[in-house]
């Protein structure tokens, strides 16, 4: 048994033991500890299995024909799946360790503790599935366990219940699309295994292949939080317990991307260019819409959820570009774009999970999620503050950290791909570059807002005032992810070979190889290694040198604490600070035709004179455009249909006999 197989079986066994332990251990605190540790071990061995497969390139097989009636389970973890299992393993390890501290007091129920390892197991198994039945059963199990986890705190918050409703229905819509898609493929290829489908899918007629691709985009897009189907994401992720929303936002949405790549490139082996343009457009729309909603929202976890939609948009742009390059005959560029996509999948998993864990720590410490009521946490919760700041720098794609590495590679592949002869590429790719650039800028602004108003300056509410640092296990969880962000930022080469194998394993895309373009060699994705290594060293060195030099100044580097100058005003209070809404107000004003903010300001004057104002209250409500114009009418229509349909069963026995009579007459006449 190879190293990968050993660690894969270890992951499954330890996961199962974790579930059993969650049910059997009596004492709540010990239960949280044991289950957390076991889940972390399960995640870590999943990580090892994935890295084993990536290192050797040999897939791991497993067959269980007797399980799952009529289909049987069959697993095959190939390098492409391994990249996603790598991300899952890492985030599961961190979230499990974090969970020990986070769920010690209020979420230590047996069922909740058992659901987390179950959810982790399904996340590990979905990329490893290699037949229609296996994939669908673990996809639906993943949806079910995450739905129950979102309901963990349903007693206290009605929003959690609504969120679970939206989430349940949207994921089932996705499941139905996937079921129809896989049935189409399996009907054509005879049996449900992915290898058979891959061999026979080229002989399907193009209209069916396009239908399969559209269904895949709908099914996987709804899970990934792509724009028209994203409504559940900003609702469900914030309501789930933080380490669960880290798992959901960090890696579960990525399995939607895995699906699109597996079906688009693997099973169907690429397709006409309009497929990829559709994906590009949807990705761009998701990126822009996601980041604009993120800027406008002042709820910390909701902002992070919307920023997940934005990052998924960037990834979809990468996948679309990769597909476009394969159709217009640039396999090496396609490999570079796909490499950027896989790198960003891992990077985003790391820093998004870190940000959600930090947000969870803020909620745990300060009990408040609204940025307008937080503040001053950097001094009260130094470690969480530092972790959040590090995550923010990473997500804003600023140099030393991993966000920059994948964004750099994505832009490289787009820029180098732009100058191809095909007209569709010449129009679509520059647009994509513009969207990626705009979202990069807006992301930076969003996370300055979040870090600045959330953590710096004076606390804006008593809850923030009384904030205390989170327990040690939460900090360890965050620390692990932070170190992953730094490691991937500085030494992305460690992943290079593995991602190369993953890209090659996808099929339809050639193995990435260095190529010369007008004088400079660009060997995706390794060239970014040199850049980020040197950059990180230079930056850290520079800051260190300057801080030391300041010591030798005449004033001896001692720092005097004094009152703010504030243009001559003393007596600084928290009410003078810029809040998240006011920080984002200029950008909301610039993009008001997309966000449709409904801003109402009511001013209460003093009785004596109309010119003296007693109180001004501003309320800024941002509605999700898609919800208002797309979901609301559909739901109202279905409800009206339900109300109308009550007439069918109105209780009169005569009407019921009338139905039977009419059926008899019609059938008799029809068969004559």
């Amino acid at each position, binding site marked *: 048994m190879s190293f990968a197989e050993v660690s894969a079986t270890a992951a499954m066994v330890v996961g199962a033991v974790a579930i059993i332990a969650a049910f059997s251990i009596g004492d709540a605190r010990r239960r949280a500890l044991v289950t957390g540790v076991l889940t972390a071990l399960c995640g870590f061995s999943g990580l090892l299995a994935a890295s084993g497969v990536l290192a050797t390139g040999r897939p791991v097989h497993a067959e269980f024909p007797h399980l799952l009636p009529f289909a049987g389970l069959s697993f095959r973890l190939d390098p492409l799946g391994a990249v996603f299992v790598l991300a899952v393993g890492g985030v599961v390890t961190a979230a499990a360790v974090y969970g020990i501290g986070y769920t010690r007091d209020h979420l230590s129920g047996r069922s909740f503790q058992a659901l987390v390892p179950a959810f982790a197991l399904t996340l590990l198994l979905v990329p490893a599935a290699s037949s229609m039945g296996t994939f669908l059963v673990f996809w639906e199990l993943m949806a079910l366990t995450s739905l129950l986890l979102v309901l963990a705190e349903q007693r206290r918050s009605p929003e959690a219940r609504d969120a679970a409703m939206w989430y349940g229905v949207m994921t089932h819509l996705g499941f139905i699309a996937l079921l129809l898609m896989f049935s189409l493929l399996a009907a054509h290829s005879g049996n449900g295994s992915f290898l058979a489908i891959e061999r026979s899918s080229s002989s399907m007629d193009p209209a069916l292949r396009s239908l399969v691709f559209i269904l895949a985009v709908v099914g996987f897009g709804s899970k990934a939080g792509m724009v028209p189907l994203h409504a559940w994401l900003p609702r469900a992720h914030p309501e789930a317990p933080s380490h669960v929303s880290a798992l959901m936002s960090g890696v579960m949405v990525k399995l939607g991307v895995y699906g699109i790549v597996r079906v688009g490139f693997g099973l169907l082996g690429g397709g006409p260019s309009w497929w990829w343009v559709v994906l590009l457009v949807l990705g761009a729309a998701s990126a822009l819409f996601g980041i604009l909603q993120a800027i406008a929202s002042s709820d910390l976890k909701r902002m992070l959820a919307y920023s997940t939609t934005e990052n998924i948009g960037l990834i979809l742009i990468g996948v679309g570009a990769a597909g476009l390059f394969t159709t217009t005959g640039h396999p090496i560029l396609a490999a570079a774009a796909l490499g950027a996509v896989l790198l960003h999948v891992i990077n985003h998993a790391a820093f998004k999970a870190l940000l959600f864990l930090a947000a969870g720590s803020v909620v745990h410490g300060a009990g408040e999620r609204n940025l307008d009521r937080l503040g001053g946490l950097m001094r009260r919760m*130094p470690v969480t503050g530092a972790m959040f700041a590090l995550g923010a720098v990473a997500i804003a794609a600023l140099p030393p950290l991993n966000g920059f590495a994948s964004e750099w590679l994505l832009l490289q592949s787009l820029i180098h791909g732009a100058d191809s002869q095909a007209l569709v590429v010449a129009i679509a790719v520059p647009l994509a570059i513009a969207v990626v650039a705009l979202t990069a800028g807006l992301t*930076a602004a969003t996370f300055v807002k979040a870090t600045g108003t959330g953590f*710096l300056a004076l606390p804006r509410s008593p809850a923030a005032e009384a904030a205390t640092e989170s327990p040690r296990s939460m900090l360890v969880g965050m620390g692990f992810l932070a170190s992953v962000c730094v490691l991937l930022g500085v030494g992305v080469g460690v992943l290079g070979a593995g991602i190369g194998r993953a890209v090659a394993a996808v099929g339809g895309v050639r193995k990435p190889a260095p190529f010369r373009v007008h004088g400079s060699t660009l060997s995706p994705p390794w060239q970014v290694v040199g850049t980020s290594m040197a950059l990180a060293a230079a930056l850290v060195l520079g800051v260190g040198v300057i801080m030391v030099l300041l010591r030798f100044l005449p004033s001896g580097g001692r720092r005097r604490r004094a009152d703010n100058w504030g243009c001559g005003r003393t007596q600084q209070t928290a009410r003078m600070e810029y809040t998240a809404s006011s920080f984002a107000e200029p950008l909301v004003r610039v993009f008001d035709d997309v966000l449709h903010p409904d801003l109402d300001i009511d001013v209460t004057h003093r009785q004596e004179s109309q010119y003296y104002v007693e109180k001004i209250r501003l309320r800024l409500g941002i509605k999700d455009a898609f919800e208002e114009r797309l979901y609301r009418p559909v739901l109202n229509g279905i409800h009206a249909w339900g109300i109308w349909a009550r007439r069918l069963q109105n209780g009169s026995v005569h009407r019921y006999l009338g139905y039977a009579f009419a059926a008899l007459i019609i059938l008799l006449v029809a068969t004559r």
Partner: protein
Amino acid sequence: MNTTRALVPILQLLLVFVGGPLIVGVIRKVRARLEGRVGAPIHQPLRDLRKLFAKERIAPEHASWVFVIAPAVLMTSAAVTAVLVPMVSTVSPFAQVSDLVTITALLLLGTVALALGALDPGTAFGGMGASREMTIAALTEPTLLLSVAAISILTGTTNLPGAINEIIDRPGSVSSIGYVLALVALGIATLAESTRLPVDNPNTHLELTMVHEAMVLEYAGPDLALVETGSSMRLVIFLGLLANLLVPWGIATGSGVAELAVGTLTFGLKIGVLAVALSVFEVFTAKVRLFRVPELLALSLVLSFLGVITSVVHP
């Protein structure tokens, strides 16, 4: 032979570190002259810095480590960019790393650090400055990247020394409308990024109109000096980038010492000319209202996008 290669980054660092305040002095001097004033000597900003470095270091009582580290990060990002951007010679140990996309990201890092530093003291003006600065930075980012895309599509690579060598060797490949559009857009972005006049008045005293100045109100002494030098170095880097892309001739392409001297001289000349042009431009334009700035940046975005389209269709 490779000693000169190692010399280049240090030379460029010194050149930018000292040249930054000098250029600001030159701009103020030319501006004063045009407004009929004598104006302070060119090296006045250097004297101010010396004075500031001698003062004691002050921080607001409830500010966290972010306030302290922000100036250092701004200074480092400027210094690293200065080393990367080929100003005096295209031959340097970091040529492989010097990439247009990386440079824009480094500058964004400096802006983000300063904005966070401004938010930390918790004054109204710090928040206002940070909010406006980030808005402008968010809107100039696409322009920068698109013009970078246009240039690299035309010259075939995003690596800056490679691009400049390309322009020097085959000026024909660059002589298209796309290149001009890209540079015009880059120019507008430079004004916005270094908060010069049309976007923000550097020597205004009315807090409500400030963008950059409002952020640094709380800094004093050595921290203020670091911020000031950082900002001026960024201005020089932008002007150097523009100059080398517009008029690359004269930059040292080999590694001879003489070539290096010639390169430094021509770089100094080019920056001086640009600085004078900038100050003349500033005298004749007024500050644009904050909510007109997005329209200006939208114009530059469209220009750079057209630059990319035309450069793609052109070859």
